[in-house]
């Protein structure tokens, strides 16, 4: 019996050692597979449309909790579009299922509101203000982090490092608010949707972002989706694929209404309506745009402090040379 026990013990110990070795080799193999030479890093082949992920988390007062780091599109991660990815994953809405109307400008709109040329073709890290900071993220595709606290919602954007305070305590707008790039935001709940009312947005920020005007008025100088129309900035490919982009200046009468709905644990939609009786013939309404919750536990808020390290003098010089060459032709 003693010999049998010894053999059994030896067998068990041997089995454990063998299992451990197998696990070790499996781990080593998996690590090597993930880092095999010649492979493209980034896990792009694993990118997929996220499932709903579960019910909507709620705060103690029963309202949906919007807190989280959110990425544009359906993948729940920041993507580098230079790698071919299924457009259905990247896009923020399906233009067939939820088409987005074009902005309609007032007839005889003064030139000062027309398609704004960027003041310079040099690098830009300007604050686009409300609602452009949200809308342009499909170009910039940096995350939006929401922190919901009693009476307030903090909206934080990694690029361009921007923070918005949204009051949710039922207060009205100040009687005579100072203009600011993000405006004065006060919100209330309509069912499970947070409705944010924004006024006093500084006239020096423009409405910009993909889809925004989509060659909304071809009679406008510079209308259309061209890099030149946007001062040579951002996202030409995405705009072409998804319907175009555009920009316009707004008046001090602009009124923005944003609707944020967390539809499941992983999904959030953002819809915005822009009213401007001076510039727009009718309110412009965006499609509900999809954001998804960051899935990587190592995905943390990252400082994106713009140092303007892009050799702006050279950019200006080359841009001027290009324009001069075009003028000669």
């Amino acid at each position, binding site marked *: 019996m003693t010999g049998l026990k010894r053999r059994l013990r030896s067998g068990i110990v041997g089995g454990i050692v063998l299992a451990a070795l197998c696990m070790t080799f499996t781990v080593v193999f998996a690590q090597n597979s993930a*880092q*095999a*030479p*010649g*492979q*493209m*890093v*980034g*896990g*792009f*082949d694993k990118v*997929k449309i996220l499932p709903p992920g579960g019910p909507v988390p709620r705060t103690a007062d029963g309202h949906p909790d919007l807190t989280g780091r959110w990425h544009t599109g359906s993948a729940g991660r*920041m993507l*580098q*579009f*230079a*790698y*071919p*990815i*299924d*457009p*259905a994953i*990247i896009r923020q809405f399906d233009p067939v299922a939820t088409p987005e109307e074009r902005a309609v400008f007032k007839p005889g709109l003064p030139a000062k509101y027309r398609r704004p040329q960027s003041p310079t*073709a*040099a*690098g*830009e*890290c300007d604050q686009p203000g409300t609602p452009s900071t949200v809308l342009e993220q499909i*170009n*910039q*595709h*940096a995350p939006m982090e929401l922190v919901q606290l009693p009476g307030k919602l903090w909206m934080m954007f990694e*690029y361009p490092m921007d923070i918005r305070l949204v009051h949710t305590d039922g207060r009205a707008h100040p009687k005579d608010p100072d203009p600011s790039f993000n405006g004065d935001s006060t919100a209330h709940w309509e069912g499970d949707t947070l409705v944010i009312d924004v006024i006093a947005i500084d006239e020096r920020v423009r409405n910009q972002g993909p889809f925004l005007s989509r060659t909304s008025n071809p009679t406008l100088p510079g209308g259309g989706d061209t*890099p030149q129309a946007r*001062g*040579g*900035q*951002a*996202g*030409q*490919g995405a*705009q072409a*694929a998804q319907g175009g982009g555009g920009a316009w200046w707004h008046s001090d009468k602009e009124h923005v209404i944003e609707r944020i709905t967390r539809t499941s644990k992983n999904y959030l939609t953002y819809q915005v309506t822009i009213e401007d009786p001076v510039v727009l013939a009718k309110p412009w309404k965006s499609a509900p745009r999809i954001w998804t919750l960051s899935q*990587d536990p190592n*995905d943390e808020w*990252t*400082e*994106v*402090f*713009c*140092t*303007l*390290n*892009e*050799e702006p003098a*050279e*950019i200006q010089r*080359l841009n001027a*040379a*290009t324009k001069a060459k075009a003028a000669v032709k």
Partner: protein
Amino acid sequence: MRRTLPGVFTLLVALLIATAPAIAHHGFSVEFDKDKCMDLKGTLSGLNWENPHAYLDMDVKEGTGKAVTWHLEMITPNALKRNGTSRQDFLSQMGKAVNARACPTKAGGTPYRGTAEFIKLADGQLRVTGQNVENLTPPQLHF
């Protein structure tokens, strides 16, 4: 890579989207020439890990034997990090071989300045570091 929607149309749309820059602060064509992109092979000699663009330096020996240093613009550090390339990846490969698909500045620009679209550090892994203005797919990279 397994595509969920195979087909020419999907590929075309994907390629269109592939041209969308990551946090581009100026148009590529304002400064760089997408028709003169080239494969560079050299030694990794420097890194600027800052916003809005990270930069790498690589020492390259030209066909004439002349030693030059290319200064190549990449996308933002937060985009690099979230897509598999960290500052440490560069630092650990400093002084070692590096391959880059690079697009130079337009005529009249600073010589030996450009963008790094894709790179391969000495660890042998391909990395997306630019806007892919040439619409290349990974199998089309020749390093």
